[in-house]
């Protein structure tokens, strides 16, 4: 294992400590239980937005804490969902009195831990709601689809609505609408190495790729020969466009995220062909993000997420945001 770490067991914690030092003007980090929260929280009268995920997906989710997006994010161990006590400590710290929305990616562990957290928070008198992110079109049954890149889009849009003073029920509706209009799919050109495990989670020959991977180093839906960038984009885009039933003249936001081990140079080659494909169909690329936004440690590969936009979602997307990973 070639990693810049001190001790495998400390990797997630030491990274969080470094993150705290790097963004100390923007946010605070609490330990035992661990959570990251915006410096000016609680913001009285504002709906709170909370999310969480395992470590190893940076900048997801801790990089999205700040004005205009998340009030708090709970980082778990590497690839492991955070525990209910983390969420509970976070909500106590940041609750602004106007309700809280949990953004939950559809993974077994994430959903179970959040369900327990929601129950405990309700018992303590907090008004909490949740939105489920399940945008991975590589899975056929839509209720079993994994939560992927749509999480970032939902957190941004719900965060903007909350910042604008919208009440909880409206924030929930907007978050659900965003979630329902987003689809993702990812491809891996390599496995990744969790510091706990010390070797790649699976072995992938250099002339092969895994199509339909998640973000935890698990194998994908199927393995096939590695093909060109344009052909990879065709494989990812076909089910996304079909599942969203995108029509000519519709507007979309495109998110291209590297999975941690792919250079941005290649991500723009991916975006180039996505842009061409959508133009050919007269679908308008209204907004885009190209970079490393949701990752899987050092996995090579990329994820493509499309969100069908309407004027309200676009204006919430454009609203100011001040987080480590998104800033405008």
């Amino acid at each position, binding site marked *: 294992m070639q990693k810049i770490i001190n001790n495998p067991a400390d990797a997630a914690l030491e990274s969080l400590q470094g993150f705290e030092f790097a963004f100390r003007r923007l946010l605070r980090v609490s330990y035992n*239980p661990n959570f990251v929260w915006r410096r000016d929280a609680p913001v009285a009268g504002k709906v709170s937005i909370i999310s969480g995920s*395992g470590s190893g997906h940076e900048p997801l989710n801790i990089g999205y804490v700040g004005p205009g997006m998340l009030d708090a994010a709970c980082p*778990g*161990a*590497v*690839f*492991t*969902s*955070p*525990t*209910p*006590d983390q969420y509970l400590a976070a909500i106590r710290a940041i609750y602004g009195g106007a309700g809280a929305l949990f953004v939950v990616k559809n*993974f*077994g*562990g994430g959903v*179970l*831990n959040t*369900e*327990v957290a929601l129950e405990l928070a309700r018992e303590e008198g907090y008004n909490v709601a949740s939105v489920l992110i399940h945008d991975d079109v*590589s*899975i056929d049954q839509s209720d*079993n689809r*994994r939560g992927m890149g749509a999480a970032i889009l939902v957190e941004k849009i719900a965060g903007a609505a909350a910042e604008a003073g919208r009440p909880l029920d409206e924030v929930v509706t907007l978050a659900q609408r965003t979630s329902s209009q987003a689809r993702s799919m990812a491809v891996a050109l390599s496995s990744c190495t*969790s510091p*706990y*495990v010390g070797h790649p*989670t*699976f072995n992938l020959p250099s002339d092969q790729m895994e199509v*339909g991977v*998640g973000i*935890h*180093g*698990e*194998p994908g*839906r*199927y393995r096939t020969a590695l093909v060109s960038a344009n052909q990879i984009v065709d494989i990812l885009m076909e089910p996304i466009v079909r599942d969203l039933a995108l029509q000519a003249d519709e507007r979309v936001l495109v998110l291209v995220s590297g999975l941690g081990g792919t250079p941005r140079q290649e991500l723009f080659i991916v975006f180039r062909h996505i842009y061409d494909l959508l133009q050919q169909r007269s679908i308008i690329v209204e907004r885009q993000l190209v970079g490393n936004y949701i990752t899987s440690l050092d996995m090579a590969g990329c994820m493509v997420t499309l969100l069908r936009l309407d004027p309200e979602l676009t204006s919430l997307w454009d609203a100011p945001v001040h987080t480590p990973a998104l800033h405008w």
Partner: protein
Amino acid sequence: MSQDITLAQFRRWLSLFAEQVQEQVDLLTELDAAIGDADHGANMQRGMRKVQERLQDPTATGGDIGSLFRSIAMTLISTVGGAAGPLFGAFFLRAAKDVDGTDAVSLEQLAAMFRSGLEGVQQRGKAQIEEKTMIDALQPAVEALEAAVAEGLDAAAALDRALEAARRGMLHTAELQASKGRASYLGPRSIGHQDPGATSAFYLIQSAAAALGRQAQAEES
């Protein structure tokens, strides 16, 4: 009652369970790497270390079986993470509900505790048998235990039946295609691999058989 299972034995059970999981961490990691995300071993190890710490502090775990189970449940829920924390937590939380203030139970009561624990796991995880999850080891074990109690077997024999049923259930998961949990994303590629959650659940039953069954018999003689 000669067959009563005591608080000391329940503590012994949890301690053995923690030891066994930690001995098998590498196996759990390997099983999870094949069809999941390779964190089950590390997660269970983190939780089990905390369980052992709690067990060494008698004031932290209470003087009755219900308090002991609740304390262990909260420890697992707050340290394991992943799906296993809430699921094993649900087992102990639910099993605790009928034994508050009790420091010994009959074999019949033990079977009822296991049934409650299983229901807790099912309710939390929404999984049924044959979905390649820990239910595939737990449910056959609970059913075997109930049948053995109905036949009038003693604790050692009854828990050995449960152990064998759990083992068969665990091994059977290799033949199944997952429809719940992270392995379900693999579709047919999940077939041929034993489920890591069912394997942990097997250790729960195996340690129960050792601490609550055979040990009960040893104490009687």
